[in-house]
């Protein structure tokens, strides 16, 4: 019985941690990205690309909606694209073979990350486009949230999935406790009957069971919480290892840790109430 509770609590802690991390990720990404725009300079010639990027940087810095902007250094881009394009293909190197030709390189765009003072509106994007149209004709300006929309919807589905899992685990734990207290009741049927016949009230008898179930649940809940937290910390380190800019912000806040610590408490309360209900219903059938 304590082991069933331990496993249920561990699984619930993991699912809840996943859901909370997803939620945090969605919130951070949302606020970060909704106020951001990306300028891509898609131009095959590196020198021309560089010139247009610098021009766009200077022009956009004067736009009233822009809070700050940052040219993503080529080295960083190269690193980002490395898994897809292989080493040596970045904008910093002309060709894979080191040939001198300007156009031989795989055309990687220059990227400018723009932070806006508030959420991006189509009007902002239009006026920014007009501003750079002449000096940097190869510039393509997009709101960051638009191309991240599928990611958002995936995150929100995962959030719901985690929520549904927590609910299901809660129900299953309740059912497990119900069955456990029913079998405990069966095993102690004679004892219950004797105490009943000696004048014990239903509440008195229920309390005997509540105490022993509460003890089991506390033991199981503590072990389960520790197992769950260990798994969450391990998974957290794995995700941190990915170190992709997108996953940052998916960590857990102090409040989240409190929520996770509360899970075994809720489990104990559910266990005790279920035990009480089971015993009371069984006693109701005795005179």
């Amino acid at each position: 019985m304590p082991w069933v509770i331990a496993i249920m609590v561990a699984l619930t802690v993991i699912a809840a941690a996943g859901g909370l991390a997803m939620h945090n990720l969605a919130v951070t990404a949302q606020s970060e990205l909704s106020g951001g725009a990306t300028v891509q300079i898609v131009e095959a010639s590196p020198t021309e690309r560089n010139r247009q990027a610098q021009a766009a940087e200077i022009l956009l810095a004067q736009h009233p909606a822009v809070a700050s902007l940052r040219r993503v250094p080529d080295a960083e881009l190269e690193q980002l694209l490395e898994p897809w394009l292989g080493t040596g293909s970045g904008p910093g190197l002309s060709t894979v073979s080191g040939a001198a030709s300007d156009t031989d390189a795989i055309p990687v765009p220059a990227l400018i990350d723009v932070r806006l003072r508030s959420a991006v509106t189509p009007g902002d994007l239009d006026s920014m486009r007009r501003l750079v149209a002449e000096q940097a004709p190869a510039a393509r300006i997009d709101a960051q949230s638009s191309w991240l929309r599928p990611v958002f919807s995936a995150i929100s589905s995962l959030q719901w999935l985690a929520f549904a899992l927590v609910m299901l685990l809660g129900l299953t734990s309740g059912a497990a406790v119900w069955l456990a207290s029913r079998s405990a009741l069966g095993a102690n049927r004679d004892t219950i009957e004797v105490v009943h016949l000696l004048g014990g009230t239903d509440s008195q008898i229920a309390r005997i069971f509540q105490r022993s179930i509460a003890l089991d649940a506390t033991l199981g809940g503590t072990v389960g919480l520790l197992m769950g937290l260990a798994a969450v910390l391990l998974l957290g380190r794995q995700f941190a290892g990915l170190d992709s800019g997108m996953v940052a912000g998916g960590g857990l806040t102090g409040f989240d840790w409190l929520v996770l610590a509360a899970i075994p408490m809720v489990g104990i309360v559910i266990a005790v109430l279920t035990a009480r209900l089971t015993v009371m219903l069984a006693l109701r059938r005795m005179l």
Partner: protein
Amino acid sequence: MKNAETEVVTFNNVGLRYGADREVLSDVSFTLYPGSFYFLTGASGAGKTSLLKLLYLAQRPSRGMISMFGTDVITLPRTRLPAFRRRLGVVFQDFRLVPHLSAFDNVALPLRVSGVREADLHKPVTDMLDWVGLSHRSDAQPATLSGGEQQRVAIARAVIARPDMLVADEPTGNVDPDMALKLLRLFEALNRLGTTVVVATHDVHLLRKVPESLIMRLDKGRLSDPTGALRYPPRREIMPRDDDGQADDFGFAL
């Protein structure tokens, strides 16, 4: 409540059947008076245990009326029954000791149920265990006790709270004659303190040991009245007695 002092229990045309079987008790009517000592006797299967179950409120009759300490217990809401059960002491035919509790804790159970403080428990419980000769087995679990020892623990548990009525089902079935006599003396001592005692037994020799006892006899679920126990005042004098003043012939065979 006006007759609470004059009647402990009254049965009126009580019938009991288990499920759809024939009645195991039929038309049972009697009144038990405070401070009396009753034997309930009859052949095995006559319905003694069934009648006692009605007495200690473990079973509802199929028909008829039962009142206890002046209150109709048939129509009473079940939440009020524990208070009545606490005024009873019961020795079950199968003892029903709580298996994972020591002899001490089993005997202490009725006191704990009634909310007696732990500090006030120790002396009465050890005294009682002493009385039934089990003070050296105080910490023993029931499974490690012999049948007779278990029976004595069961009796100690039944009398520890000084019940208003003691109900004992074959309480001497597993002990030697000396211990049987000793236990009967315990019941008598309790009886002298005012407890109404009802002892079910099929052992005819036991009846002779308590001269002032009244006898109810069950035969196939119907009650007969060899000593006038069911009339009031009881007509003890109709009992033929032998020279040591004890009943000799009850007018029926067991």
